[in-house]
């Protein structure tokens, strides 16, 4: 189901994060070296000294991770979509200079989603299952690494396949790492199976990324990435009434991150800012803040994220009658009169703000085995839109995400 894409995105983000932690761009430093940096007067020196001669080392151990996530969203008086997603991730080193990674996720999606704005009447019901897998191979060189990946995902009405290539290399002192990447995806949308009228529609995207990661001080690392993507093809949502979108969508994404180690708490602060705009007219800002606090075998990571977006240029506000109620008749008449032009009443293209509160707790059973629990609460309100009241006439929207996981290295 195309409808499920928002829910699936939340889960997909998780699997991306999982991969990030397993092929960390940050320099491996030995335990003894880390302990020595706490010695008085030595940290300043290490700013001038590389922690390690190779930017990124091939993994020495295999990793297997099993996660189970569940996502549920709702608006007042109505539970909308539920997603259950078991995940598997495996990474294996080969011959010291190669790493193979593979992951699989199976989502089952069920529930209902509005055909207009946040209207419960006439919502489209759905129940679907998505299988997605990816495979990635990385070759490590002194101070550099190159990766190639393929990914495939399949639902009964939506098939997506993607390839990617990326490379990263570091300066001689290892204080700076450059990254470039290219990705391409090809999607097919066809819902005739469930009685729909979308037949064999296609969508293609090309994405280019460049970034730099800089060690600023022994306690500070900053990262900046710029991504440009070009997409062409079918962007409509077949489960919304008279939803017609442009057949191309080009985006700019700028991402800045700053990680700071707080000596006195032995903790880290991860902060990020993301800017997004696209040719639909959507412009968004995301601010993220996480506090990573180790305490013996435990690690606690509370997080806060604020998101705000402007509406797409072809998003249409609800029409209200004299009593202030949703006037479905007027909305339909407008849609029909605009038929053939770009228009959408999809809540996800409206202007709104959202806040996510999250807490992740990890516990190391042994040095090689970690279990973790992550809980996220997402609240979306039009009134939280940055610098204005956002789109009128929409109900609040909430979502919860809970994930448990087990990771083992051997």
């Amino acid at each position: 189901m195309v409808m499920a894409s928002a829910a699936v995105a939340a889960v997909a983000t998780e699997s991306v994060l999982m991969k990030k932690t397993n092929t960390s761009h940050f320099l491996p430093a030995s335990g003894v070296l880390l302990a020595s940096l706490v010695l008085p007067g030595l940290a300043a020196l290490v700013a001038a000294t590389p922690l390690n001669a190779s930017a990124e080392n091939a993994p020495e151990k295999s990793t297997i991770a099993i996660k189970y996530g569940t996502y549920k969203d709702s608006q007042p008086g109505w539970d909308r979509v539920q997603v259950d997603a078991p995940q598997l991730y495996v990474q294996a080193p080969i011959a010291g200079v190669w790493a193979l990674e593979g992951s699989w996720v199976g989502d089952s999606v069920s529930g209902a989603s509005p055909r207009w704005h946040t209207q419960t009447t006439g919502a489209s019901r759905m129940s679907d299952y998505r299988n997605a897998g990816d495979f990635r191979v990385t070759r490590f060189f002194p101070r550099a690494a190159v990766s190639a990946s393929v990914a495939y995902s399949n639902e009964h009405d939506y098939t997506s396949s993607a390839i990617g290539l990326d490379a990263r290399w570091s300066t001689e002192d290892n204080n700076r790492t450059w990254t470039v990447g290219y990705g391409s995806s090809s999607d097919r949308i066809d819902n005739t199976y469930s009685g729909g009228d979308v037949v064999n529609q296609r969508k293609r995207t090309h994405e280019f990324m460049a970034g730099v990661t800089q060690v600023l001080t022994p306690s500070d690392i900053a990262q900046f990435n710029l991504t440009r993507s070009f997409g062409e093809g079918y962007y409509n949502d077949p489960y919304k009434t008279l939803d017609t979108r442009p057949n191309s969508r080009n985006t700019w994404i700028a991402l800045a991150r700053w990680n700071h180690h707080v000596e006195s708490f032995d903790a880290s602060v991860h902060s990020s800012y993301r800017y997004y705009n696209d040719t639909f007219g959507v412009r968004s800002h995301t601010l993220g803040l996480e506090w990573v606090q180790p305490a013996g075998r435990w690690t606690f990571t509370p997080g806060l994220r604020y998101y705000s977006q402007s509406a797409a240029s072809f998003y249409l506000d609800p029409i209200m009658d004299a009593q202030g109620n949703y006037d479905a008749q007027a909305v339909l008449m407008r849609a029909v009169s605009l038929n053939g032009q770009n228009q959408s009443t999809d809540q996800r293209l409206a202007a709104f703000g959202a806040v996510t509160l999250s807490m992740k707790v990890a516990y190391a059973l042994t040095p090689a085995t970690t279990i973790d629990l992550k809980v996220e609460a997402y609240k979306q309100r039009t009134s939280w839109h940055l610098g204005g009241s956002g789109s009128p006439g929409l109900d609040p929207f909430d979502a919860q995400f809970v994930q448990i996981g087990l990771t083992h290295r051997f």
Partner: protein
Amino acid sequence: MSRWRTLRFDFSAMASPCSVQMDGQDERLMRRAAQAMIAEVQRIEQKFSRYRESSVVSRINRAAGQQWVEVDAETLGLLDFAQALWTQSDGLFDVTSGVLRRAWDFKKAVLPDQGQLQALLPLVGWQHLERKGRQVRLTRTGMELDFGGFGKEYAADRAAAVLHNHQISHALVNLGGDLHALGGRGLPESASAPWHIEVQHPRPDPAQPQAPLALLPLTRGGLATSGDYERFFIQDGQRYCHILDPRTGWPVSHWQSVSVLAANAVTAGALATIAMLKGPVATDWLAAQNVDYLMVQHDGHRVHHTQQLPP
């Protein structure tokens, strides 16, 4: 600014010959930096040497089994590091094991009395050191704290930090074989080339006693060597060296020498010593620490691992 020159200052500290070599253009700055650096090494020696009555280590040792001693932040930092080394070496690197020297006399070259060694073993154990805020206490009378296991390396790193703060960017600090390089050579004809360090041969050829084991290039970071040739005696064909296993009180014998290159000297020195103590399993353990090393096994066989050195 004037022409490039190399200056070398020799001095003696921590019972070892020491030197610093610098490439630069501002001779007055280089001399000032060297002076400040030597003062820093002497400060550390006075503060932490167990041979100095007034050192903080001597104060803690005199109070063993009795009262708490209040110490400053630098000492607390060294204690934290000692704790980390003890934990990460599974108890092999223990700054309280110096007391075993009472049983071992390398000058007289006689094996210790087993009874005396057994009596000393209960005085060895980091777990018998208590801490409470800024206060520290050895709980057993007769216990001894000794930062000798990484003191010289710590001084080499601090010395390099002093040079760094004086805007020196091409220097090599050598404190009795524990080295810290602060950037490569500076002279225009050899700009950025590494310093070349001679590593002493653990079993020198009598025909060429000065021939080194290896010539290692070092541009940045620390290099330290631990070996069974520094203090030892041989009895009935068996070599007894000064590196003692804190669990048994007896010398290690698997490695003749271990040299480690790491981001700083204190890490290199600690890893080299722990490798000597670990015996046959040291190779895997060092590899996991992401450092380069050169080790000579008891039979003369060499093991090395290189990330930054040409093979």
